[in-house]
């Protein structure tokens, strides 16, 4: 409402200024006409004397008017004694300069200070010329006031229209605003009530409201992804840690019931410790994955010499593969770097190499390749083992997913989940494919700008 008020006052002020300019111009035009008439009367007098001046007056007044019709122009010449010589405004005082005079209904000048009902207000000028003759030329201001009234009328209508438009527009705008705000707050309330998939509908016209809604929706998307992640982790922990815990409990129970000698007890305790270690390893892997997925590590990204990192991994695992009857070979392009977290990257590649070592038979060949194409740096770990069945290849990066054939082998099914999380954190594309035979894991990093 405040804005409507300010708007109205603003328009009114503008109109008042326009009105003032217009009336002033009209008044100036009227005065100019009066002056011209006076000039022509005086010119007439100078050329041929007072009679000619009178003739000019008569010509200017034109045909004698019918009674009852008020003239618009008033002219009057008086002599030095003040007697009216010629003109249509008798009884006028001899006043000089510009002044207004009231004219009554009978066409007579009302003395100054006198009251007059009806009649006209004449604006004119009194001038003395020649042998102390006096001439007054005036014009009825009625036309002036009429014009002003018309303008004021028009302006009032404009003002009224503007106020109406302002009120209606303002109300509509406020309503739309309220609707949008309602929409947003309803969405937020929905989220508070637990409907995490609620999103603010967009108008689709690219308005600033849509931009805000989009930003809020993006935030909501990120939050629900994190939440889903958290829920996933909790349910993973609840379901998948139950199995090893149950196993451990059963073993301990059995040991308590059956063990007799210290040696038997000792071996049961050792196995229980092994089970706990496995559980703890699962916990660390889970923690690491959620740490990676939370994206907080991004802050510590630096230039990582990936060639050196893979060489280190190669040197670390070559003896392990050898002891396992496998062959680990590496072909690494020199001097490549990526932007990332060295510790996480080393763990990721170690996971992949260890997977290959653990899940391929003796005599297998495991290859580490690092190369670059135009926009990508690609690291590949490939083996010629049994590979992953095509039906399961999309599922292996899920937490706790284990291939049906390897459920009996040691492991917790978190290795590839960590690999997926780490490559995602690095903006790298993770591709699992068939090496024909074997598994081929490719990680393609976007090449970062050389510094």
């Amino acid at each position: 409402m405040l804005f409507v008020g300010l708007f109205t006052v603003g328009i009114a002020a503008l109109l008042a200024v326009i009105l003032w300019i217009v009336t002033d111009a009209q008044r100036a035009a009227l005065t100019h006409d009066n002056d011209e008439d006076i000039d022509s009367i005086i010119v007439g007098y100078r050329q041929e004397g007072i009679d000619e001046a009178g003739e000019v007056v008569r010509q200017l007044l034109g045909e004698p008017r019918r009674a009852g019709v008020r003239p618009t122009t008033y002219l009057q010449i008086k002599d030095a004694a003040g007697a009216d010589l010629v003109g249509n405004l008798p009884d006028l005082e001899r006043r000089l300069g510009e002044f207004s005079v009231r004219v009554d209904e009978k066409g007579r000048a009302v003395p100054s200070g006198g009251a007059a009902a009806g009649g006209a207000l004449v604006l004119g000028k009194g001038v003395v010329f020649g042998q102390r003759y006096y001439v007054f030329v005036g014009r009825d201001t009625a036309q002036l006031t009429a014009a002003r009234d018309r303008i004021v009328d028009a302006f009032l209508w404009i003002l009224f229209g503007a106020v109406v438009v302002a009120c209606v527009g303002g109300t509509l705008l406020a309503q739309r605003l309220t609707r949008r705000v309602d929409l947003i707050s309803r969405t937020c309330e929905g989220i508070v009530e637990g409907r995490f998939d609620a999103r603010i509908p967009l108008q689709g016209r690219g308005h600033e409201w849509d931009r805000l809604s989009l930003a809020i929706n993006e935030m909501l998307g990120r939050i629900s992804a994190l939440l889903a992640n958290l829920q996933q982790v909790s349910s993973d922990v609840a379901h998948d840690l139950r199995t090893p815990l149950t196993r451990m409990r059963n073993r301990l129970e059995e040991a308590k019931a059956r063990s007799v000698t210290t040696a038997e007890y000792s071996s049961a305790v050792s196995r229980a410790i092994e089970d706990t270690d496995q559980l703890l390893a699962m916990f660390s892997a889970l923690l690491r994955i959620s740490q990676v997925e939370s994206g907080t590590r991004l802050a510590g990204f630096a230039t990582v010499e990936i060639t050196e990192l893979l060489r280190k991994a190669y040197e670390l695992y070559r003896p392990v593969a050898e002891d396992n009857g496998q062959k680990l070979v590496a072909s690494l392009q020199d001097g490549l770097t990526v932007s990332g977290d060295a510790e996480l990257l080393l763990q990721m590649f170690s996971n992949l190499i260890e997977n290959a070592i653990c899940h391929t038979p003796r005599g297998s060949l495991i290859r580490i390749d690092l190369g670059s194409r135009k926009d990508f740096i690609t690291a590949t770990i490939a083996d010629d083992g049994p590979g992953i069945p095509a039906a399961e290849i999309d599922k292996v990066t899920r937490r706790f997913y284990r291939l049906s054939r390897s459920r009996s082998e040691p492991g917790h099914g978190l290795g590839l989940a960590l690999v997926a999380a780490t490559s995602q954190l690095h903006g790298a594309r993770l591709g699992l494919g068939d090496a024909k035979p074997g598994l081929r894991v490719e990680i393609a990093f976007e090449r970062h700008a050389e510094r």
Partner: protein
Amino acid sequence: MRLLLIEDDAELAASLVEQFRDHGYTVTRAADGSLGLELALAEDFRALIVDRMLPGMDGLALVKTLRSSKATPVIYLTTMSGIDDRVQGLEAGGDDYLVKPFAFAELLARVRALTRRSETSTKLAVGAIELDLIHRTVTREGLAIDLVPQEFKLLEYLAQNANRAVTRKMLLEKVWDIHFEPNTNVVESHVSRLRARLNEGFARDAIETVRGVGYKLVAPN
């Protein structure tokens, strides 16, 4: 040997005090950070074992304050296992970092490594095995033994801690700078290669395997 344990978990602290005593250490325990700092500044301990999350004053602030006046070796015990947590701990002036839960043998081995007398010399000798730290060469009974750089690094760390068991985890951290638990026998494979090179032509095994703990480079008396 006197140790200061700053740990608020009474049960864990009692168990650690007892186990350290079994290995010939005298352990003073402080249950909160401010008392711990006071003790650490007032008395001379061979090493400090500091929990990161403590009442009174947290472990990180404690070590930072301590470092302005004392160089006593510090090992953190903590449940905070993030990469940043470890880096922060070491940057504050800690010397080692052990994540809970841990095996006592792991803590013991690390405390022993921390309390060893650090001599800055160019040569290391463990029995008949001699390491030239400048030229990175090794001899056993005067015979040159050919080692690749990684193997030398591994032997160097074992030699620095001669006659003390070092754990697999310590080797991974100190020799390879690896801070995750591998699923394969990485350390075993490398140690067995080093062992084969060291023992070639000698009857006595220079590297002793300590069951359930790790390895020990031994000098015969």
